[in-house]
């Protein structure tokens, strides 16, 4: 079905186009560009998230279901996906409530895979349900965004992603993702102090490369000891666990 080289991702994109799934990015011209896989069953939301990501200089592949996402990643069968070594996905952002496969189920499948378990997965939801957020973070989600998603939210994601890619050898990146799965304080994207997020946006340049642990509150880090994103801090200080 697929050529066993970099062409395979192009083939799958063509397949996607053939069945009329969302918009797809053009063939990679800059391998340093962040590539995001966006998953949402709502066309309106897909268009918006895609635009949000493109405006922050990401390449975007947008699909309309968890199954399509797995197809794109080559995880839809049980074969070891050796040939997908070159499929570069830097971030997966998915809606939680989707018919068929939920974002949570997709998250689990990604974290179970060998090829993509280190890719950060961000969950989006219109509902601010603590148990849902906790569940996702425990399963290894990087972050949880409350819909409607705003430019500031995407910029925030973008900023820690870039840093991740720049700073880390693979070892560090693995550690970051692994460690963050221990992190359980919920995050939301509708902070009451809207100005805070924008001001944080400019002053917050990094996330810690080691976690804010479940129990402990001070990350041990060789990078600047900036706390995790503003909303986590807010949530913690409000004691809203």
């Amino acid at each position, binding site marked *: 079905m697929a050529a066993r080289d970099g062409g395979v991702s192009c083939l799958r994109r063509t397949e996607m186009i053939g069945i009329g799934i969302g918009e797809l990015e053009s063939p990679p011209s800059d391998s340093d560009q962040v590539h995001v896989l966006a998953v949402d069953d709502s066309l*309106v*939301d897909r268009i918006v998230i895609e*635009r949000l990501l493109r405006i922050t200089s990401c390449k975007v592949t947008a699909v309309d279901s968890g199954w399509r996402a797995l197809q794109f990643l080559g995880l839809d069968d049980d074969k070891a996906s050796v040939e997908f070594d070159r499929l570069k996905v830097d971030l997966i952002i998915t809606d939680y*409530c989707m018919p068929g496969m939920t974002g949570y189920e997709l998250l689990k499948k990604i974290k179970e895979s060998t090829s993509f378990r280190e890719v950060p997965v961000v969950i989006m939801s*219109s509902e601010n349900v603590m148990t849902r957020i906790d569940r996702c973070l425990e399963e290894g989600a990087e972050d949880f965004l409350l819909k*409607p998603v705003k430019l500031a939210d995407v910029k925030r994601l973008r900023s820690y992603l870039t840093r991740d890619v720049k700073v880390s050898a693979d070892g560090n990146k693995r550690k970051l993702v692994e460690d963050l799965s221990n992190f359980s304080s919920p995050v939301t994207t509708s902070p009451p102090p809207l100005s805070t997020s924008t001001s944080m946006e400019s002053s917050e340049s990094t996330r810690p490369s080691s976690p804010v642990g479940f129990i402990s509150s001070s990350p041990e880090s060789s990078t600047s000891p900036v706390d995790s994103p503003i909303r986590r801090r807010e949530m913690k200080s409000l004691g809203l666990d």
Partner: protein
Amino acid sequence: MEKRQFRDYTISLYHQGFLDDQFTELKKLQDECSPDFVAEVVSLFFEDCEKLISNMARALDQTGNVDYKLVGSSVHQLKGSSSSVGAKRVKGLCVTLKECCDSQNYEGCVRCLQQVDIEYKSLKGKLQDLFNLEQQIVQAGGRIPQVDI
């Protein structure tokens, strides 16, 4: 002059609760490369409205055998997309409709759905007027003013 009209009209739409700051967020995503982004998104939204409302109406028509799960999932979708485009009143009515659906309040659902229908059509007309004003400004060689709400 069109610019003042545009400004005033925009402000009134926010003040009267038709639009909320998510609409502002969408405007941020519009630029010279994507000058029609907002119009395109809201147009998709209105198509969504039509389709989902029609689905719900059909479900509610099956008196005695209403599929409230279907109504519930449709209104959830509509609530989501209205939220994503900043259609504040539509979203609010979806919340009410969802409550009626959750409590299987048939009369409430029917009434609410009618209101959602009226509301989205009203918004559609108003946004069309707004886009027309924008067009007039652009065609007269002007730039669309930034409106601070």
